[in-house]
């Protein structure tokens, strides 16, 4: 008999959610996390007594309690967590800014339609038809890849509006360059424009603590500082894993959340790993400024998606960073949050992994400093100046992301090619998380849940 019925590689959100499902129904389950903290891509770190979150700008998929089929409420039921004991803070409102044109939206989906009616009255009827076409889509049905750009162009015939709608959906959940699969577009459109942004009370630390506590209450085991060196196979099955310290753990089933390229490397899965390496990675800069200064910058907004330039060019940049488009997030600006002083401003831009990876150790610091400044200056053109009032600042690059999460090339949305079924060449090795295909915090957890439901529990 194997030591564990289920071994999960990775203590990120998909791994913990998968673990909760398995442990809840009595399976002997172990999660192996290489880092000293849980969370994976959505974790936190401490610097000079400050807690900095790594991934979270906002959670998507906000839903009121009664909407039972909404992804958020399904998630709570599946994890056996009470919504009633959970604090939700909805966004104040967000903005999409393209060279002088602006669309404001919020968790009331009528706001976006009204904004389009004001800014692009010629396109509002076609936008309504677009929403009907989206409502008629089933993004979870198996379907070949279809171009979201083409779908948008056919419905809207308005390149600027098409780009403005695509920007938040791509930045918050598109692994592909240039275009997006229609199914993924529909999932993201609903998650962002129809359901909307919120964040839990407290920080990512409290949220992760809650999940880990739930997992452990069901009897699940979790080990930190336990990097996996190999997935051990025997013929058509996997038999367990070997840790970097040499310990071997046997298991009936292994679930890897480390991404397809990393899972290939660990298991000796034959194939071209580069095909599955995602190209979209980001650099993020977190600045702390006195609350009084932050309020005039945010002007009641939670997130600003900005773009300067002719057409939206969603791809890995040639240079270290592309500051011509990005996201500016004010994480303190959700309704009902206690005032935070100093307040944070987070700026995210797409970054080139090969550039950052190729830097010599002594050059990395100065180059990072230079691009941190560039990112902040670009954001000041959108929200106003704040450099003189910054009391603390930190940033992380694609190299940092890869080191802490094992996501190949720091690709936060993983491979452009997803394996929706979670299946691998081995009958009892599955993948979940980013490369299975559901993205974001809610999506990652539903990914872990879905794969365990389909392949482990029945």
């Amino acid at each position: 008999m194997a030591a564990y019925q289920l071994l999960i590689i990775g203590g990120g959100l998909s791994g913990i959610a998968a673990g909760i499902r398995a442990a809840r129904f009595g399976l002997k389950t172990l999660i192996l996390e290489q880092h000293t903290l849980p969370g994976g891509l959505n974790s936190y770190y401490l610097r000079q007594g400050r807690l900095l979150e790594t991934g979270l700008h906002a959670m998507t998929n906000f839903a009121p309690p009664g909407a039972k089929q909404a992804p958020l409420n399904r998630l709570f039921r599946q994890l056996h967590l009470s919504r009633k004991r959970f604090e939700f803070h909805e966004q104040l409102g967000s903005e999409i800014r393209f060279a002088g044109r602006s669309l404001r939206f919020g968790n009331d989906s009528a706001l976006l339609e009204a904004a389009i009616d004001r800014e692009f009255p010629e396109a509002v009827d076609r936008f309504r038809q677009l929403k009907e076409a989206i409502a008629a889509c089933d993004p979870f049905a198996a379907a070949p890849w279809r171009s979201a750009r083409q779908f948008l162009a056919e419905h809207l015939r308005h390149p600027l509006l098409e780009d403005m709608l695509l920007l938040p959906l791509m930045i918050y959940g598109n692994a592909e360059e240039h275009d997006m699969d229609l199914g993924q577009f529909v999932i993201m459109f609903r998650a962002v424009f129809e359901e909307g942004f919120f964040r839990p009370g407290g920080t990512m630390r409290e949220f992760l603590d809650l999940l880990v506590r739930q997992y452990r209450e069901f009897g699940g085991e979790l080990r930190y500082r336990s990097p996996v060196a190999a997935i051990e196979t025997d013929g058509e099955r996997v038999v367990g894993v070997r840790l970097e310290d040499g310990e071997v753990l046997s298991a009936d089933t292994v679930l890897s959340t480390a991404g397809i390229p990393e899972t290939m490397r660990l298991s000796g899965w034959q194939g071209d790993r580069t095909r599955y390496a995602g190209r979209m990675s980001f650099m993020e800069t977190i600045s702390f400024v006195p609350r009084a200064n932050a309020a005039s910058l945010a002007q009641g907004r939670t997130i600003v998606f900005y773009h300067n330039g002719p057409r939206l060019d969603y791809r890995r940049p040639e240079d270290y960073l592309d500051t011509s488009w990005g996201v500016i997030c004010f994480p303190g600006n959700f309704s009902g949050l206690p005032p935070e002083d100093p307040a944070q401003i987070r700026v995210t831009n797409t970054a080139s992994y090969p550039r950052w990876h190729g830097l010599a150790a002594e050059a990395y610091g100065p180059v990072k400093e230079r691009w941190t400044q560039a990112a902040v200056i670009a954001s000041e053109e959108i929200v106003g100046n704040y450099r003189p009032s910054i009391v603390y600042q930190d940033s992380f690059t694609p190299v940092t992301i890869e080191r802490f999460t094992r996501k190949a090339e720091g690709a936060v949305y993983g491979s452009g090619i997803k394996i929706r079924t979670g299946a691998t060449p081995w009958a009892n090795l599955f993948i979940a998380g980013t490369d299975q295909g559901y993205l974001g915090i809610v999506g990652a957890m539903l990914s872990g849940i879905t794969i365990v439901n389909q392949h482990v529990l029945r």
Partner: protein
Amino acid sequence: MSRDEIKDVLLEIIADIDEEADFASLDADAPLRDQLDLDSMDFLDIVMELRKRYKLQIPEDEYPQLATLTSCVNYLEPKLQNV
């Protein structure tokens, strides 16, 4: 277990799965899924909970027999007679 006991167990399991489940107007002969707005994931949880509690293996092709509260009780009565 008596039919009433089985019924109580089922309602308890559903209440545990869905803290918002409202049984006040539940029709025992109408599909549970429609009335309680449950999905296939919730349904799996009912099956898994029965397995955990009573070591009961319910094959997937027999899931349709769990459609209503009455059909659940009919289906489970012989399986739980010695519990």
